């Protein structure tokens, strides 16, 4: 298999010949993928093509059926539970629906990883959590709300604040702009770029929001038929002749997104 030469550093995530099946249903097979240090990588593909599953495998949630995943230089298959926990501490995940804990208010939701993984005093945890909230554009008053009192956009922001609570080196975003109105989606894209600049994590972004890809992603991987169909920058992909890529990126929506980018 071929890996493009990466400049300077080890890839943050290296996926080799990955396969995943649930029972007899094959989600994907023979996936090879590198996430490079400091980039924002977009993963796109039609609904049900296994984008989210791939992201979850890279975020150490389900065990793949075949192949290997290396995250932050460690091969996941060979890691002990303690090793996995150590890697997880350096990784943040924004789940599709936020997955905020309903019994805790927003401030305490953001504080959960801090309380769990550090021995900081309660007031300091709250101050750091409040700082993260303000980084994602939520006010201190919002911190006292419970997840079921939040709008869709606020819920995503709160979930992002929790994902960056420990300043992760690697940040996974699962459909961050789905279900948001265009204005909020634009604002969220800008927020991701801001945070990227401020905290400098490597970001893996699963989405089918083409506008988002144009604006945010440095590099894009197109999944389909259970494998990687194409990878490259959006410019490279749009000039591709591959019919599957053309169908995905050159439809009316794809062209509109390109025109506005």
């Amino acid at each position, binding site marked *: 298999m071929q890996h493009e030469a990466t400049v300077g550093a080890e890839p943050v995530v290296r996926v080799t010949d990955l396969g995943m099946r649930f029972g007899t249903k094959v989600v994907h097979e023979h996936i090879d993928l590198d996430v490079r240090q400091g980039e924002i990588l977009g993963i796109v593909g039609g609904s049900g093509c296994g984008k989210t599953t791939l992201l979850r495998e890279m975020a150490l949630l389900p065990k793949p059926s075949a192949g290997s995943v290396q995250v932050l230089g460690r091969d996941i298959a060979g890691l002990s539970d303690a090793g996995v926990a150590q890697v997880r501490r350096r990784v943040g995940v924004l789940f599709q629906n936020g997955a905020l*804990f*309903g*019994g805790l208010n927003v401030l305490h939701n953001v504080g959960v990883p*801090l309380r769990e*993984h*550090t*021995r*900081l*005093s309660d007031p*300091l945890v709250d*101050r*750091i959590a*409040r*700082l*993260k909230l*303000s*980084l994602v554009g939520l*006010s*201190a*008053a919002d911190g*006292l709300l*419970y*997840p*079921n009192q939040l709008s869709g956009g606020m819920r995503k922001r709160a979930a992002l604040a929790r994902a960056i609570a*420990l*300043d992760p080196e690697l940040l996974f975003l699962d459909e961050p702009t789905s279900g948001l109105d265009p204005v909020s989606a634009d604002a969220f894209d800008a927020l991701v770029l801001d945070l990227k600049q*401020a*905290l*400098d994590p490597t970001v893996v972004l699963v989405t089918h929001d083409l506008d988002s890809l144009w604006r945010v992603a440095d590099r894009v991987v197109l999944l389909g038929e259970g494998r990687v169909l194409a990878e490259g920058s959006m410019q490279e992909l749009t000039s591709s002749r591959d019919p599957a890529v053309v169908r995905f990126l050159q439809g009316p929506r794809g062209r509109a997104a390109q025109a506005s980018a």
Partner: protein
Amino acid sequence: MCSGYWTVRHLAELESQLAHLRFPAGALEIDLAAVGRMDTGGALVLQELISTLRQAQHEVQILGLSPKAAGLLELVGRSLEQGGITPVAPQRMLLERLGRGSVAHVHAGIGMLGFIGEIGLAWMRQLLHPGRVRWREVADNLVEAGHRALGIVGLLSFLLGIVIAYQGGVQMRQYGASLFVADLVGLSMVRELAPIITAIIVAGRTGSAYTAQIGTMKVTEEVDALRSMGIPPLELLVLPKLLALIIALPLLTVFADIMGILGGMVMSSVQLDISFSTFIQRIGIAVSLDSFLVGVGKAPVFAAIIATIGCYQGFQVVGSAESVGRRTTISVVQAILAVIVIDAAFSVAFSRLGI
């Protein structure tokens, strides 16, 4: 002079060190050249330190800041300015809490009455249009609440029968009245213990399931989906459960009667040498049809209480998984309490009536 890692993983030590640090008056220089790594947590602590020192009239100068750390520090400074004053959740005094709690209880009581009224109305509608009764759901619920509960109800009443026969038999033998152990087991099981134990098991087993199911459906907006499709949630979710439980609980009670008496019979034969046929004969004399009907007759009332409380608490769920858990607990506690209180009321009423 500062050194080490200023990251959240190491901040705990830093926090306690800073708390013990005393600063000399006048101009201060903070040298960060030896700081290995800094994240937003570290930047926050540093920024807070700087502003406290500035407030205490110190001249503060920062040295040796890496470009990345400088960026973080500026970002944190900006955010802190925007954040402004933090609102604090209001503290409530004892009297206010008491008042709010009482009002909440009154509202809950009124809500429960309203719910019972709604069920009554929905039931009337179904009586007028019997075709709208959802027999499929009723049958499913019957299997779940009735058939699947046979094992646990049977086992517990059998053991209960054994315990009563054993404890009673020891006493009665002293007076040479061993045979009356059949009266004891028969009457106490049929009149009181079988209906109560069955109702308590069903409240824990089925009432809680009703609350959890409806509560989860509320959290996932399935209840709203039903409403928007023009299906009254009460008709689909509550009435079949209520009807199924009103049918199932008396049947379970009869089963508990039989198993309890069987347990007593086995124990009497082992311990007191009373043969099965003698025991059964004695039961026939001791337990009148009235006593049997009194016991079984209470069961539909218990069933209505359990199902109503279970479903009502399910609809009271708001928002989160935690709320489902809390409501399920309340549902079971209230149902068992209500069953026992109503049973006591029945006892008083029946003794006045001389049944």
